[in-house]
């Protein structure tokens, strides 16, 4: 009987350790409760601000966002070239400081219902002692073209070393998997609504 109790205790400890190794951070996001998102059929993803040292991170994340949005099957996404062409045509120099009027004009030029903008804040390896693991932080926002208001916004971080990787050498995600995970999680909050 005592032996049985010991095994049960060991299994409980193992399960606790395993659970603590799997990530479960809660995303910080805002979604306008008064907006019907099924109305948005055509969306443009603007170039993202790159706040990292990796020159290509913003474009990598942008391509991922476009791909994930398309994969949902709920929206059509304007091709990136059209977006760049409209931005140049309207003489917009700084995407991060668009005002309501510019958002409306850009949206109308592209003939979309909403635009997605944002930034990549962290894109690189985080060191912890002798080990390192990729970590990505992104912020995405969706603006309604009709009103120019932000109707969805999310900031997410994913990656880094978890308990199992640090102590048992468990598989850490690659940078690409981290990017895919963070973007997918962000888009899921929109879908869940």
């Amino acid at each position, binding site marked *: 009987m005592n032996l049985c109790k010991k095994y049960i205790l060991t299994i409980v400890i193992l399960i606790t350790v395993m659970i603590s190794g799997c990530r479960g951070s809660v995303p910080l996001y805002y979604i306008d409760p008064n907006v019907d998102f099924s109305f948005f059929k055509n969306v443009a993803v603007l170039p993202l601000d790159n706040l990292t040292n990796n020159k290509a991170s913003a474009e*990598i994340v942008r*391509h*991922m966002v476009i*791909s994930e949005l398309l994969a949902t099957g709920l929206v059509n996404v304007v091709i990136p070239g059209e977006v*760049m062409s409209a931005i140049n045509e309207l003489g917009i120099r700084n995407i991060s400081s668009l005002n309501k009027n510019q958002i409306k004009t850009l949206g109308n030029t592209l003939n979309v219902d909403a635009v997605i903008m944002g930034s990549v804040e962290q894109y690189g390896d985080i060191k912890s002692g002798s080990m390192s693991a990729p970590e990505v932080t992104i912020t995405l926002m969706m603006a309604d073209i009709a009103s120019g208001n932000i109707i969805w916004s999310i900031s997410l971080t994913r990656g880094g070393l978890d308990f199992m990787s640090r102590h*048992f050498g468990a*598989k850490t995600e690659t940078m*690409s998997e981290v990017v895919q995970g963070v973007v997918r999680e962000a888009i899921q909050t929109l879908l869940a609504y």
Partner: protein
Amino acid sequence: MIKDTTIKERRFFLIRALSAFFILMACVSGCAFGNGMKHYTRPGVDTNSIDKIAVLPFENFTSDKFSDEKIRSLVIIDLISRGVDVIEPGEVRGLLKEMQLRSLNSITSRHFKQIGEILKVQAVMTGSVGVFKVSRGATVSYPEVSISLILHEAETSDILWSAWHTTGGAGFWERHFGAEGKTVDETAKILIDDILDTLY
């Protein structure tokens, strides 16, 4: 008699301990998974009916200067092996030069239409290479490749199909037992094959 019982108990304990170890290993190796590929195919479009494609040069977001051309070649070879008629890369490059396209990122619907008319193709493929390198993990090095592909209808520039996929990372055996992993090129070939399986 006492000795027999002790040996039995020890064996029993050893078997249980080994079982717990393997369960733990299975769980540890499973924690990082769950990033399956998602792709988009435009509703009502039969991509199998597209038999002539122009593959434009890819955007390169990596530090390897030639990764875009390497991946593009692999994509073209894979498409040809699936019976798709692919326009010669030189012909595409010449046309883009003629059209004075400064950046691949600035291709508009007008350009797609022009490319379609001149090269007489139904669809135009664009893409980008996000990662193409040997990455260093916590304890081992491993190949990592990620690419994004988009197929546009030449006439309307509508996106017919799109996929983003990544592969690589050290597996259980590489991490714990030092088994030899795949090369970057092998990883890229597998990745492209997986992606194009969703198209044709």
